[in-house]
Structures are given as C-alpha cells and as structure tokens.
C-alpha cells in the first residue's frame, strides 16, 4: 500500500499554499480580472470615469476588418516561424548529436541567439535586411526591386519571421539536443549493427522517442510567437507597411498605449488569451495523441 504524508488539519496545508496563492492572485488573477472589467467598459485614460458598455468593445473589434487582418497576419507568422525554428533546430541538434567534427563548438554557439533581447536582435536584422544599406542591398543591385520591406508587405513579414525564427532556433536547439542525448546509445548502436542507415535510425528510433519534446516545443513556440514577437515588430516594421505585420500583440500595444484606447486594448488581449487557450487545447486534444511518453 502506498504511504502518504498528510497534514493533520487541512488549515495547515492551506497556510503553506497562501504565499503562492497571493503571488498568483496579485500578478495574474487580479490584472486579468481588471482587463476583463476594462474590456466591458469605456475607460477614460486619465481615470476620470468609465461607462459600462457590455460587449460593445468586442463587437466593434470583431466587426473591424483591420482586426481580422491582424489575426490572419498573426496566424501566418506563428505557423511559418514555428515551422522554421523547429525544423532548423531539429536538423542542427540531430547533426550535433552525431558528434560531427566541431559539434562541441556548435553546442555553445547555437544557444547564444536565445540570450539576445528581441529589440537588440531586431536592430541587427534591420541592418542586415535593409534594402539600401545592408546585405540585401547586394541582392537588390543584381535584381532591382527584389527586396523592399518598406512597401511590400510579404517582404516585411519575411523579415520578422526570419528574425523571430533565428532567436527560437537557439531555444529549440537546447531542448532537442537534450532529448537526443537522453536516448540510450545502446538502441542506436543496436540499430546500426542491424544495418540501418542514419536516416532510417532517425525516423524509426530517434524521432518517435523525442516526440514529447517536439510537442512541448510546438506548444511553447506557437504561444511565444503570439507574445514574444512584440519587440521584433516594434523595431523592424512598427506593424507596417499598410498593416502587413500588425500582429495581434503589437496592435494591442499601439491601440492601448499609443492610442490610449485602454478598453479596446483590454478586449483585444482577452481575445488573444482565448485564442491561445483554444490553440493549446487543440494541440493537446489532437496532436498529443500521437506523442509517446516513456
């Protein structure tokens, strides 16, 4: 029979949980509750008063074509950048795990990008991808008008996707490498002795064994691409050109803080929260089925 350590009185248990509960309440439930309240009212920015408007804020947001454009842009951004960041990291980690020459060097170098703050990274990429001064200027010389993120929305979207993926390749790499190294060598060696090649071993042994990590990173990458994209968008495109990169999190910032429309921004953040929750539920319901935990 399992032996359990229990407290004699339930109040002692509660008492131990109180500090944590206070923290969660102060830094999560209270602000989130405040956001819900704001989203149902029209707040005067200086605090002069507010009016109860029910769901009007949500109605006007959902009736706004710009908002739907923002949702579409966020989805495209999340899909492509998550795919890029995960595939590249997976390939790099698989190669590093094979102990190719210099792999100890890659291991250190590839972790660095995640340590760089988003705005600093965005500034660097703004230089690299500047059509007139940076690396792309060379391409533009050969092929005039090829790269113009100032007016071409697709180019601008590509810029922020590249910058974001670059950062998260480093993050994903750490987890993938750890997952690969947790696979018992004996399994791979046995397969090798049975005559299977590198690719075969990857698909039949390594890949199935790291699916929990893949699933974890998928959830994190998608969530982060909705939230952590702010610094990159703010520095690189400021949502332009013509709203092409106006991701949901950036729109919340510009409407709320620049436009002083606190209520509209609160409603948008509620929608964003619901969307991320929904996406995560979908992932757990449908993708986790294919994950094999050991």
């Amino acid at each position, binding site marked *: 029979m399992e032996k359990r350590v229990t407290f004699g009185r339930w109040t002692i248990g509660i008492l131990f949980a109180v500090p944590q509960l206070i923290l969660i309440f102060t830094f999560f439930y209270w602000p989130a509750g405040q956001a819900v309240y704001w989203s149902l009212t029209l707040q005067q920015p200086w*605090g002069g008063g507010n009016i109860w408007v029910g769901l009007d804020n949500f109605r006007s947001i959902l009736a706004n074509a710009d908002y739907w454009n923002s949702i579409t842009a966020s989805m495209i951004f999340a899909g492509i950048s998550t795919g890029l960041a995960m595939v590249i990291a997976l390939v790099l980690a698989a190669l590093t795990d094979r102990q190719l020459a210099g792999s100890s060097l890659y291991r250190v170098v590839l972790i660095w990008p995640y340590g760089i703050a988003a705005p600093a990274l965005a500034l660097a990429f703004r230089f690299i991808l500047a059509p007139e001064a940076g690396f792309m200027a060379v391409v533009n010389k050969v092929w005039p008008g090829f790269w113009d993120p*100032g007016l071409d929305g697709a180019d601008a979207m590509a810029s922020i996707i590249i910058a974001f993926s670059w950062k998260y390749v480093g993050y994903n790499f750490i987890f993938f490498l750890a997952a690969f190294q947790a696979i018992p060598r004996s399994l791979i060696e046995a397969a090798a002795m049975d005559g299977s090649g590198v690719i075969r071993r990857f698909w039949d042994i390594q890949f199935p064994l790291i699916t929990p990590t893949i699933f974890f990173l998928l959830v994190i990458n998608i969530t982060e691409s909705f939230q952590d994209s702010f610094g990159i968008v703010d520095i690189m495109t400021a949502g332009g*050109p*013509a709203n092409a990169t106006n991701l949901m999190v950036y729109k919340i910032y510009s409407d709320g*803080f620049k436009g*002083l*429309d606190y209520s509209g921004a609160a409603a948008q953040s509620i929608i964003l929260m619901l969307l991320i929750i929904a996406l995560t539920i979908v992932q757990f319901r449908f993708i986790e089925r294919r994950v094999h935990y050991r």
Partner: protein
Amino acid sequence: MTIIKRGFAALAAGALSTALAVPAFAEPVKFDFWFGLSGDLARVVDTLCKNFNDSQKDYEVVCTSQGNYDATLQNTIAAFRAGKQPTVVQVYDVGTATMMLSGAYKPADKLMEENGYKIDYSDYFPGIARYYATSKGEMLSFPFNSSTALMYWNKDAFAKIGKTEAPKTWEDVGADLKALKDAGYDCPMAINISANESWQLMEQFSALHNQPIATKNNGYDGLDARLEVNKTKFVQYVTDLKKWYDAGLIKIKSKDLGQDMVQAFATGTCQLILTSVGDHGTVGRTQKEGMNWDVAELPVYAGTERKNSLVGGASLWVLSGKSDAEYKGAAAFLNFIHDPKTALFWSTNTGYIPVTKSGFDFMKSNGFYDKAPYKGREVAIESLTASEPTEITRGVRLGNFTQIRAEFGTQMQAIFANKVSVQEGLDTLVKNGDAILERFQQTYPGKTLP
C-alpha cells in the same frame, strides 16, 4: 515587464518627491518636470533646468526624460492614476485634445495669475498660441519646443538646371524634379510615408492651402468633428506625389530601408526634402563637405493664397493635485522659460524656434540669424506668420490623433504599393479615422472641449 518596472520607478520617484517636498527652512522646494526629449536635446533640457536652479534659491526642479513623447504621456497617465504625477509635464502637440478633456491639469494662465506673474499672451506668435489655446483663446499650457516644416533644397543641384531659387509652387516642383532627373540625379526628391509624415504632408499642406482636415474647424468646435481630407486639395497633392513617385522623381527614404530622408539630403543623395526646421542643425553638422543648401517655405499650388503653416512640438502642462508650494515653483519655472534670454539659449542649442515675438526680436538683435549655422531659420518664423491664423489654420484638435496619424501612414503605404487608388486610400483613411474619433467622443460622454 517594462510596464511593471516603470510603475515601480514611478512609485519610487513619487515617494521620493513627496518625502523631499516637505517644506523646510532654507531647503528649496523640489518639484518634478517630466519631458519627452532624448539624446542631445535631453542634455540641453538638463542644462536649462540647472540654469533655473542656479538662478534662484527657493525652488529646485527635478527634470527627468521619459525617452519620447508617447512614453511621457503614457507614464504621466499611469503616475496620475496612482496619484504620483509630476508637477510639470511636456505633452506633444497632438496630445492637446486628450489633455484638455483629462481634467488632470491646472490651467497655466490661472496658475501664473495666482502667483503674481504677468504674462503678455499677445506676445506669443498667434500661430503658436492658437494651436494650444482653447477655442476662447485661454492658454491652458505653455508652448515650449516649437518648430514648423520647411523645404530643404540643394543649391548645387538646382544650379545645374539653371535655378537659383527654390520652387514656390508645386507645379514648379514637378518641372524641377523632372529637370533634375534629366540632369542625371537619381533621387530628385525624398519623402517618407509613415505616421510621422502626416505632419508635413497632410497637416502642413492643408493649413497652407486653408483646407480643412476635419469638420467643426478641425475639431476646435466640438468632439463630433469628422475627417474630410478625402475631398479637399489634399487628394490632388497625393495624386501628384504618387505620379512623381511612379516616374522615379521621388524616392522613399526611411531608417528601416537604410537611410532616412534627412541623411539622404545631407549626403547629397537626394536634392529636395520636406522636414522640420528642427533638422536644420543636423543637416548643417552632417552635410557633405562643401555642399550648398538652403531652406525655403513649403510650396503651394499655383493661385493659392498662402496661409500660415502649423507649429509642431510640445507644450508644458501643470498637473492638478500638487501643493501650493510646488505650484509656486512651477510658476517660477514657466516664467523662466518664457524669458527671451532662455529663448536665445534654447534656440541656439536646439533647432527649435522662439515662441514669442520678444524672444525672436531679442535673438535678431543679438545677430543670431546672421551667423552661418543659424542663418535660414528665420524662414520658419516667416512661414508661421505668413497670415493671421484662420479658423482652419489654428491647428488640429482631434481626439486620439496619434492613431489617425498611424492610419495616415497605413493608407499612404497602401496607395504607394499600388494596393488601392489614391481616392480609395483616402476614403479608407477617413472611414477608419472617423471610427477613432467616434470612439473618443463616446469615451467622454457629455464633455466638451474648453
């Protein structure tokens, strides 16, 4: 995270200032001044504050840069909601309507009167005073850093096409740009089309041509004002700009692309730009060796009776809820800034123009405008005072105008990327801008602009 950090910083600063503001003998009364300038300009403000503190013993102003105008307003609002607001704050031009409805200020004219300072409000250039005054003409805030838009032109390039003077009409500009292109200049004129350029492209243009941006006299007469730039001369202007862009006469220059338009002009890459007189110093300091250039008033379409251009910049607001002692200090500070000698110091060290006639006269009598690096800046005053301000050229008083400017950038980008026609783009600008205005009006039910 940063918001939380700022919140803590604001709390800490607030706690500190109340702790220090307790009147004590021989200790000067401290009060806070938050401003939105950074870099070189922030250093000049710091010197200005030091000069004020050295000039008397009763008060000490603590000047804190908040980085930029947006952040200053945001942080001030957050501080105000927490009851830790600064005494004096610098608010940018387009924040005026928001401030007027905030109920969070002490009218500057009343403050000065209560503390025994006599300010001659007719001494302010009318174009500057009216921008910040109520519809009845009361000054709720004090104009501080002020500028207006000018045309910068490369004399060497224009000499090549046989011109010794800057073009005065847009028709001439069109012909000159063509001639410059034919003479081998790759970039005759540079513009940018982000939210920031709403100022010189839409607002200044509309004022010079006495064209409204919104109904109700650009919003001065009521919160129910709505945009109407899709049916004024502005449509013609955007059409021409787009035509010249398509013909390769205009290039888009912005920092994101590698070089902003001021750099493009200073390096001689582009021959004509429209920007603030505040950039006069930057162009002078960073220009290509030996390049001859000058500034001129913005052109108008032929047959237009030229009106005054609009002031840009920020004004100083005194916030409510402070002690009498702090208000005394604030009044002394505003009076110090109003002094012509401060105007000379301020304009010499920045590109901003004096806001009062006496300040301008004092600077002229000091020979300020005769010397090389500052010569030409008097054109800004000429442009601002080209006419008595009309009902429309007083300024723009629209709620959440920052968002309307953002919408301007968005639609101009759509137009220049050939996504929509000029008329469609401007129609959308009006439609989306009106939604912003409507929302602003709903947020302040039953309130009217003073």
